[in-house]
């Protein structure tokens, strides 16, 4: 029921090498995340956050370096193979679900990796499990299991996506600004549920956010990326002392420096 350690060592990724548009997205990035830790990730556009996520997920292959999940080196594994142990939630609520299929069908699909051996994807045993899970959200979704995903609201869809991402008990959870596109009420609700599930199941989590308050209040560690490297790593007392304002200052100072350079 717990997440694994994540080790990123010397990860380097170059786009369009050798051309005028060459960009060094990841620059020998090192990151060690102990099991069950919830890390928030900051960084301006182009700092390498999305590239880092895509490389961990297997959508991109790095030029050099390695990624280890627990003891296993997953650097060469295909994306759908890695998906057995990790999930990702995106800003766009449409992205992680099949719109014309119902909520229970989507959950059944997401659960495939760990599901019961029944022939039919949607079956009573799994459904009972899903119903209990949905009930914990307190959003009334357990009564809408036969609704098509496309008809749910953004917040409902994202909450359902969160469940889909965690129902198969992943070892690693990646969250890419997953509340940014929701209205404040829904965003708060979804963040609340996120923290609950992550803490309960002790899933190792990385969350990209632009919200300075979230960055410091959620989870137990905050890192900032810039030019493909980790430039700031706060945890413990140092993190508690940091305020949102000071953090923002650090953030902008980096961008100012970049502009002037």
């Amino acid at each position: 029921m717990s997440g694994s350690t994540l080790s990123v060592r010397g990860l380097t990724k170059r786009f369009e090498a050798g051309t005028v548009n060459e960009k060094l997205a990841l620059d020998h990035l090192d990151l060690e995340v102990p099991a069950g830790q919830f890390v928030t990730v900051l960084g301006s556009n182009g700092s390498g956050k999305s590239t880092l996520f895509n490389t961990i997920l297997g959508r991109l292959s790095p030029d050099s370096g390695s990624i280890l999940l627990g003891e296993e080196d997953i650097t060469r594994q295909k994306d759908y193979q890695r998906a057995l142990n990790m999930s990702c939630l995106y800003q766009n609520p449409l992205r992680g679900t099949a719109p014309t299929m119902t909520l229970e069908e989507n959950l059944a699909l997401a659960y495939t990796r760990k599901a019961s051996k029944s022939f039919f994807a949607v079956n009573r045993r799994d459904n009972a499990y899903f119903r209990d899970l949905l009930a914990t959200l307190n959003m009334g979704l357990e009564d809408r299991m036969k609704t098509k995903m496309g008809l749910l609201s953004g917040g409902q869809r994202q909450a359902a996506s969160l469940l889909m991402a965690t129902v198969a008990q992943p070892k690693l959870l990646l969250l890419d600004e997953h509340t940014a596109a929701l209205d404040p009420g829904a965003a708060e609700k979804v963040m609340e549920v996120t923290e609950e599930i992550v803490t309960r199941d002790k899933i190792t989590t990385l969350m990209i956010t632009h919200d300075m308050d979230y960055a410091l209040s959620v989870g137990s560690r905050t890192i900032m990326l810039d030019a493909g490297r980790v430039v700031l790593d706060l945890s413990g007392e140092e993190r508690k002392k940091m305020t949102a304002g000071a953090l923002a200052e650090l953030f902008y100072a980096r961008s100012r420096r970049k502009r002037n350079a």
Partner: protein
Amino acid sequence: MVYLSMLISALSQGMLYAPMALGVFVTFRILKTPDLTVDGSFVFGMTVCAAVTIAGHPVLALLAGTAAGALAGFFTALLQTKLRIEPILSGILVAAGLYTVNYAVLGGQSNLYLQYDTVNSAGAAVKAASPTIYKNFSALFAGTEGVLADSNAQVLLLTLIIVAALTAGLGVFFFTRPGMAIRATGDNEEMVRSSSINADLTRTAGVMLANALVALSGALLCQQQRYADLNCGSSMLVMGLASVIIGQVLFGDRGMVGGLISAVGGSLLYRIIIQAAYQVDMPSYAVKLLSTLIVVAALAVPLVRRKLARGQRGGKAQ
């Protein structure tokens, strides 16, 4: 009475093409990719069925024809997933290649009648008609009177049984794990990969299934008309699309099982319309235009419905 027999004739034709409509439904509606292999795999099913029927195995011939379609679909999917070739182009390439294959299966001819060489009671070498499932089925009705005495009615009945079983089977299949994975691949491939399912595999399975269905239509037609001809595949995809679209518009969007049934219904309705068009003394070019207008109208109906609904609700967007 004349109209009844014409109706039965149209329905029997529509039922023969129904598996093809189901196949087009799988690629067009479920996988949401266009598949142009259809013109080739239809004839492939026909030629393979002809070869096996002449060898004396009518039921095996149908299975062989269906398998041939699956093989064709496999190659189309291979081009799409491994070589990353555009779906439309993959289908065209495989269909083009199948032309040569079909020619070879027919033994270097373009037309093959279902008959085999044998010796008659006088010892002379003659050709005897190969047994087909329709011929064997008709033997059950020897001597009956009424509607079932019409050979078209017998064809309709046997094909209806096959299509009904097929539709039921598909309806169940798409709620099993592999079936749902195929449905999701058409809906959101990324999500399928994120669920740790190999999306290339599910796409391949879907395209193979679709072309197997199309080839079954070709095989059934071959046994019914008792010959295989290379020219039979032209404009098959268009006919299949027209059937699926007409069915969807007339029977509405009623989920997976409803969609399958509406594809079959669309195939029947399409043949009825064509048959009716011949009855009215239309000049030939007009019939083609009529078919075009029917499909355009069918495509326009949802838009018109939406506009009317919006008008009634005072213009509130959903």
